């Protein structure tokens, strides 16, 4: 039997057994669609996350957090020393982040996290204001009771009105709204950064907490290429200043762009690897379903197989026919799966504001998966059919 006829015969069998074909194909369709959608979304998700991280964090930044030694070990003087000793450190922003604070405005009460930033936060974090003014050197020096709020927070508190110059209470202390922060959206931790409340670090230290330490700092270096080595030099300065002996662990944590990118890649691995792996499991199940349905079909088609043999079909031709049928079913449902997966990826991406990365290799992978399922599932029924004894089959 030639290829065209084989295809025609397979398509005819499919159209004559629509329900059976549907049940055989639905698993492949779901598997292929999941495979395609998750791989495309995973790629887009990672891309979007990296862009956001790069914008928020920058490529020549080092993040320092207290840690290990508990709060209190990390001081502004540490950073002054770092700036003095390392010429490549061009700017730094000391931060004190405190959660669970009470924000009050008229009859609105909210629990907020207060971010302490210096006047250099604008440059170091690449996030200024869309309205009003950023913190000044004076604000830091005098521990001024001023605050910057995110766009959504401004909307929540003041609606359409301009918040500039308005007074809000933070832990019952009055603060004047000095500016509205540039919108940033959801950060990689899932935090809506447009609900931020920022206060000068010095103000948090002296007026809100009355402490002499900070919780974290972001340091900018002059060139992305030297970030990692500068981070090492900073670490050794901090260890020396904190009196940490050789072999003892750090009492601080340090994050570099390389580290953060690795974490992002790990996060998106769920989408890029584990979900497609689940799709592969679905496809394997689909192969088993097709195989068992076809095995039943072979039994139902005993007489057909016997007759075809009597009419001159070789064992090979019979086997090929069943293999072609399995392949045709899985290819057709694979095609539907590719279309469904494509549409699903586009819709989900649009809803989540993500780019989709549907590329040819991904589509090729999805199709290859369908072919493999077809061949795998057709093998056993094909062998069964080919070995049928025509006398028995025709009785």
């Amino acid at each position, binding site marked *: *039997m*030639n290829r065209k*006829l084989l295809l025609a015969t397979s398509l*005819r069998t499919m159209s*004559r057994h629509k329900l059976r074909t549907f049940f055989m194909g639905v698993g492949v369709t779901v598997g292929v669609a999941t495979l395609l959608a998750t791989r495309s979304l995973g790629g887009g998700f990672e891309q979007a996350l990296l862009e956001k991280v790069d914008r928020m964090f920058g490529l020549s930044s080092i993040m320092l957090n207290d840690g290990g030694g508990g709060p209190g070990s990390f001081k502004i003087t540490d950073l002054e020393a770092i700036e003095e000793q390392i010429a490549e450190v061009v700017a730094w922003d000391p931060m004190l982040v405190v959660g669970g604070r009470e924000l009050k405005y008229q009859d609105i009460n909210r629990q907020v996290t207060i971010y302490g930033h210096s006047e250099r936060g604008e440059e170091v974090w690449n996030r200024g204001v869309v309205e009003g003014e950023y913190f000044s050197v004076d604000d830091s020096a005098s521990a001024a009771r001023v605050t910057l709020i995110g766009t959504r927070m401004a909307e929540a508190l003041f609606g359409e009105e301009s918040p500039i110059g308005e007074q809000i209470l933070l832990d019952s202390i009055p603060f004047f709204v000095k500016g509205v922060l540039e919108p940033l959206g959801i950060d990689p931790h899932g935090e809506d950064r447009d609900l931020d409340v920022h206060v000068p670090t010095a103000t948090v230290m002296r007026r809100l907490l009355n402490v002499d330490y900070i919780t974290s700092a972001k340091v900018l270096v002059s060139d992305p290429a030297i970030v990692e080595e500068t981070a090492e030099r900073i670490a050794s300065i901090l260890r020396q200043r904190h009196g940490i002996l050789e072999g003892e662990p750090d009492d601080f944590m340090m994050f570099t762009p390389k580290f953060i990118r690795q974490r992002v890649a790990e996060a998106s691995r769920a989408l890029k690897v584990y979900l497609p792996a689940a799709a592969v499991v679905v496809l394997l199940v689909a192969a088993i379903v097709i195989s068992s349905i076809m095995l039943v079909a072979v039994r139902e088609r005993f*007489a*057909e197989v*016997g*007759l*075809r*043999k*009597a*009419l*001159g*079909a*070789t*064992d*090979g*031709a019979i086997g090929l026919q069943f293999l072609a049928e399995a392949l045709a079913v899985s290819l057709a449902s694979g095609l539907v799966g590719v279309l469904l997966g494509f549409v699903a990826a586009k819709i989900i991406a649009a809803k989540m504001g993500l780019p989709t990365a549907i590329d040819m290799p991904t589509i090729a992978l999805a199709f290859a998966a369908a072919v493999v399922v077809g061949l795998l599932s057709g093998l056993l029924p094909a062998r069964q059919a080919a070995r049928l004894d*025509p*006398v028995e089959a*025709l009785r």
Partner: protein
Amino acid sequence: MMHLRGISRSFERPGEERLDVLKGVDFDVDSGEFVAIVGPSGSGKTTLMNIMGLLDRPDAGEYELAGQPVSDLTAAEMARMRNRTLGFVFQQFHLLPRTTAAENVELPLIYSKARETRSRAIEALCRVGLEDRLTHYPSELSAGQQQRVAIARALVNDPEVILADEPTGNLDRSSGEQVMGLFAELNDNGATILFITHDEQLASKASRVVRFEDGHLLTQSN
């Protein structure tokens, strides 16, 4: 055309005694003969015809078909002979369901990789008088018409031998006579015809009747 020597075939089922169905059958059929095989039920007529039709292999004995010793043939060569040299007609017609008459007749041509399969199938259906039933499904045809489709399928590849196992067994008398008429016509055109029947009257239309009894062939001519 067909020469059988000492053909035996027995069946063994677990827990039962071995059943010797063919006990050394010698049988010769010349080219162009029209042979009827008769005999009591269970005497081994179908078993013999399956062996002659290369659907089954004997346990012992020699069989030569169209000059070819069958024991030397590979499975693929046997398939090829079933396709080119032989044509089958069965009591239950064995047409593919949900497949038109023309497509059913086309099947042997597909396995011989022939060209113009559709027009040859239509030609064969014309020969059995079904030119106006080409796109009918088996379920839309009478029993007699279905058996004529099966005969068209048997003759479409111009085989030298047609083997028919009780071809009229499921037909009424007039349809049966129609089928026998077609066989006679094919035989006139040179085909060798072997058919099994329980109907002595139909058997008498053959040029030779062989009687089967207890695994042996009792030849008788008429």
